[in-house]
């Protein structure tokens, strides 16, 4: 994702990554992968629950998914993924470019 962050930015998107990992985990990932976008720690599953992406059968983790929130505050695009199939950065760029 970091590799294509510039493309996402160029398409008008600001990237936020959320997991149920703690701050240490989130920080570790930022440091390990030298991420420049925002990585959030949702140990309380607040955002995960609000966006209805709690993993099936596991209340501790999120289902891999992507939401694009338009500037009018509505959800403009989403992708629900699995462990084996993930949305690619080019998909996100295409979605951003295809928004109204």
């Amino acid at each position, binding site marked *: *994702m970091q590799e294509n962050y510039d493309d*996402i930015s160029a398409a*008008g*998107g*600001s*990237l*936020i*990554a*959320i*997991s*149920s*990992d703690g*701050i240490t*985990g*989130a*920080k*570790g*990932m*930022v440091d*390990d992968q030298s991420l420049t976008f*925002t*990585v*959030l*720690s*949702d*140990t*309380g599953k*607040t*955002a*995960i629950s*609000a*966006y*209805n*992406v*709690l*993993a*099936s059968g596991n209340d501790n*983790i*999120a*289902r*891999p*998914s*992507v*939401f*694009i*929130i*338009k*500037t*009018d*505050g*509505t*959800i*403009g*695009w*989403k992708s*629900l993924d699995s*462990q084996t199939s993930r949305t690619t950065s080019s998909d*996100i760029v295409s979605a*951003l470019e295809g*928004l109204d």
Partner: protein
Amino acid sequence: MKILYIISITFLIVFAVGCDEMQSQVMKPMTMPEEGGPTEDEVVTSVGTMKDPSMTTDDSKEEEPPETETMEEGTSTEPETMEEGTSTEPETMEEGTSTEPETMEEDTSGEPETMEEDTSGETQTTEEDTSGEPETPVATFSSASPASGDISENETITIEFDNDPGEVTVNTGTVSGSGTSRTISGPFTEGSLTLEISWTNGNGSKTLDYTVEEDEPQISDATFSNATPTSGNISENETITIEFDNDPGEITVSEGTVSGSGTSWTISGPFSVGSLTLTISWTNGNGSKTLDYTVEEDEPEIPDATFSSASPASGDDISENETITINFDNDPGEVTVSEGTVSGSGTSWTINGPFSVGSLTLTISWTNGNGSKTLNYNVEADAAFSSASPASGNISENGSITIEFDNDPGEVTVSEGTVSGSGTTWTISGPFTEGSLALTISWTNGNGSKTLNYNVEADASFSSASPASGDISENETITINFDNDPGEVTVSEGTVSGSGTSWTISGPFSAGSLTLTISWTNGNGSKTLNYNVEDSTPPEVSTSSTADGAVDVDPTTVSNSGITITFNETIGSVELKLYKDDVDVGWTATISGKTITITKGSGQELSHDTMYEIKGTVKDSAENENVVSITFTTKSAPVQLQPLARGEGLRIGVTAPTFSVKDSDGNDYSFDGNSGGSSNIVIVFYRYRG
């Protein structure tokens, strides 16, 4: 010894042959001193005597008292020569080739002289020579010069005798001379001197008393060395310095006044203008010197000048091109300044800029008195005229004109009116003389001036208004009149127009009580008129929270907040209702000033997808009525969707939920839903569990 023996034999022969002749010869005065002996003019030391040469042969005998003293008293019957007779020959004989003295040859008497008072029977000198040979007369002291008193250490005393005194001796000094005159020369010891003089002829003696004073030191002759100046032009009051190699003693000059001491002297004027031959004479060496000069007339003496005053004074603000006037008590001569240009004459001078802007330390120097003075100023930038309001045209007698400069103009003066202000903005106030006005404005910083031309109008006074008061309509036209042109006229409400002395004020005016203030420039006057503006127009809708013709109106929002309609005037009464299909929904209207609010009653919520109409009448307090009709349509009701299963996310199009979590640094992070955001937000949920 051989010579002595010969002399002795010779002497004995002579003595034996002519002892008597010899004896008479030795008593005669010696008229021919022999070679090698002292002459009569020769000096004999004070301890010695002036002797006949024939009497001095044996030093051992000289220590004995001279026989002449005893002879003088007549107790000695023998001449000295006899007593000293161990010397048997005169000195001349020692050297002589002749064995006889010349005097002896001249003695023709062949007889010994007879001693006048000799009673001893021995041979004596006598006062009278009876032998026919000349006798030496007894000498007596006649005079001395000086005879007494003060003498110098090296004084020469001349003494006189009536006859030749013979040998003269003194107790101090040196005797010289011959005949009846002798001189006794010093040196004498400073102090009291008793000079004892003794002489042989007459065996006399004399005592003279003197006081010996110390001699003045001997002064060498002085010669002229040089003069400064030595020639050429000199002033009337020149001082000429002259030098000598030694002290010249007393100096006199042919012109001027001489003073000095030692070897350096000065001759001071005044000297007469023209050619001057200056003769200098001095006593030591009796010298004189002539110097030639040309005496030039002295310049009149100029008194020293002292600084008197400066205008502007030190400490004042001045402009770049200021002219500073300085004064002296006397002519300062040449004047120089550290900045600016100085000019002038006599006691009054001016220093002109430009000067550098800022602090200025101005030093003034002048030659007469070698004076200087420092003045301190703050130099302000020159100011230029920028603008005037009004710049021209008509102004009133007591009007005012505002003028602007680019810099502080310093002091501002005007040809008419009164000027006041500070910095760059100034005001010129009347009264001005009615008619054409050429108003000249002058200022110091930059020494600038500007002339503005105006036409001064007489001040205007309010004359009348029609109507002057009372009820007027909202669109009334009020006519006002002045005695003179009021210039510019302004009113607190309505629109004013006109010219000359007659003007009109037109509505609309706000209904109700009206206090109408009229102001005009010529004379800077004002007038207040009071009216009651009658309301003749109905209230008009200004705004409505639910606009007429609006669609997609959220019925829930409108139901909750009601509908607010604002009018252009205060509403007096209202008959407005909310209709749905011409059926009164039942909402009620309330009045608050210019606003009417229509609110629902219980169970009177608006429905979705429905057209509503607000209609009815509103009246103002003057019962002016207006019919109001506002229609709007509510939006359709939302489709009810089944909630998505767990993990299926949210539907597209729904409002994104807000949330608050922590970021990777542990800071609070809140997502506001991005409503009104600047960019789309991509939220990626992922599993990491690192």
